[in-house]
């Protein structure tokens, strides 16, 4: 049996939510080197490509994971935002010598195919280790492996503001499943029904403690966080 000793360096497209954090975890678990995170901060809240993480939160997550992050801003204009993504990936290739990109894409062929085209053009690998993954299986693994995932926005009927700031655990996951069946929203939030923020995970060297937050409409705004020893 051939054994490859070369460890491929990868950049993870990172939003700070459950899917991108889990994809980074899988890459490390399979013994790849996650050399950097790449975060695209879009000014366009309606962007189909990128959800709009907060820069300082992403930077704190990167610090907790102890992996550098490349932050790229984009106006979020359709298709032009892809040039910004390409720019960010090129920076990662130059600075960190990455040979591949990892995404947390599950069902969105719109997002996945656009990243695939950029990677193909730059002649680097593209990995989508959550591709087509069953939402329930994904949540169960997230909970079992002790990822701490907070709901930071909601926009689906039946999934209201009472969930903002909540961490999804084994108990309220059953409730979440019932609501998703009753109100027919995607359990994995593939339709934008909610956004998540990860405060701890196996790849975090430190955990994130939320010191100050507020609720504004359908959003849980994290105002101040600190890193804590695990």
């Amino acid at each position, binding site marked *: *049996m*051939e054994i490859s000793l070369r460890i*491929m360096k990868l950049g993870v497209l990172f939003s700070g939510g459950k899917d991108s954090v889990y994809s980074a975890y*899988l*890459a490390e678990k*399979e*013994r*790849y080197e996650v050399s950097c995170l790449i975060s695209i901060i879009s000014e366009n809240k309606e962007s189909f490509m990128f959800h709009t993480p907060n820069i300082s939160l992403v930077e704190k997550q990167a610090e907790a994971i102890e992996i550098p992050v490349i932050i790229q801003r984009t106006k979020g204009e359709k298709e032009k935002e892809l040039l910004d993504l390409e720019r960010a990936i090129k920076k990662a290739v130059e600075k960190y010598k990455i040979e591949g990109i*990892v995404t947390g894409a599950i069902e969105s*062929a719109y997002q996945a*195919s*656009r990243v*695939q*085209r950029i*990677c*193909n053009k730059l*002649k*680097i*690998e*593209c*990995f*989508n*280790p*959550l*591709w*087509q*993954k*069953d939402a329930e299986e994904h949540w169960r693994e997230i909970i079992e492996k002790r990822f701490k995932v907070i709901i930071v926005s909601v926009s689906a009927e039946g999934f209201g503001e009472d969930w903002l700031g909540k961490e999804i655990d084994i108990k309220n996951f059953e409730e979440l499943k019932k609501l998703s069946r009753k109100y027919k929203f995607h359990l994995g939030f593939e339709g934008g029904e909610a956004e998540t923020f990860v405060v701890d995970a196996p790849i975090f060297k430190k955990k994130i403690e939320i010191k100050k937050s507020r609720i504004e409409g359908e959003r849980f705004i994290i105002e101040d966080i600190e890193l804590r020893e695990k």
Partner: protein
Amino acid sequence: MILILNICKEKLHYFEFVKPIEEILKREGKKFFTRSYKEIREEDLERAGKIIICGTSLKDNEFIKNINKFSWIKKINKPILGICGGMQAIGKVFSGKLKKKTEIGFYYEDFKKEFLGLGGRQEVYHLHNYYVEFSELEFEIFCKNEIEQAVKHKEKEIYGVLFHPEVRQKGLISNFANIKL
């Protein structure tokens, strides 16, 4: 028992190209086992009732350089479904020419007649930089735009699809799994 053949060079691609196939078979209640194309043995081919050869990434052409490891395709008489790279492997074993064409994302393909339960216009997910030309003496072409998208050997139960049915046409894989032996 269905043998799923993993042709991916990189371990991390298992989750993207092999696991979704395994999940479809699990949902159908079909027993399967998975092997790397480099580690396939005589006893695996004997044990398998059917074989699915999965696809791999755009950049991964290692399996083509190792096409000798697919010579069993011509020797056995069992149903085989090749997906994307799997279809290319089938084509190369039957002396088809590998040619360059990049298709990434959703495309509409028209099926001339029913193919493993698929017919008419289908929106399929493509992810390839190459394709293989199939001989119409040996293969029936069920779907072709400029290039062969779905083929079946005229005498054997060997099927090839250039697109990834595990994305939008999971029923195709279920139908293959349910072919009566």
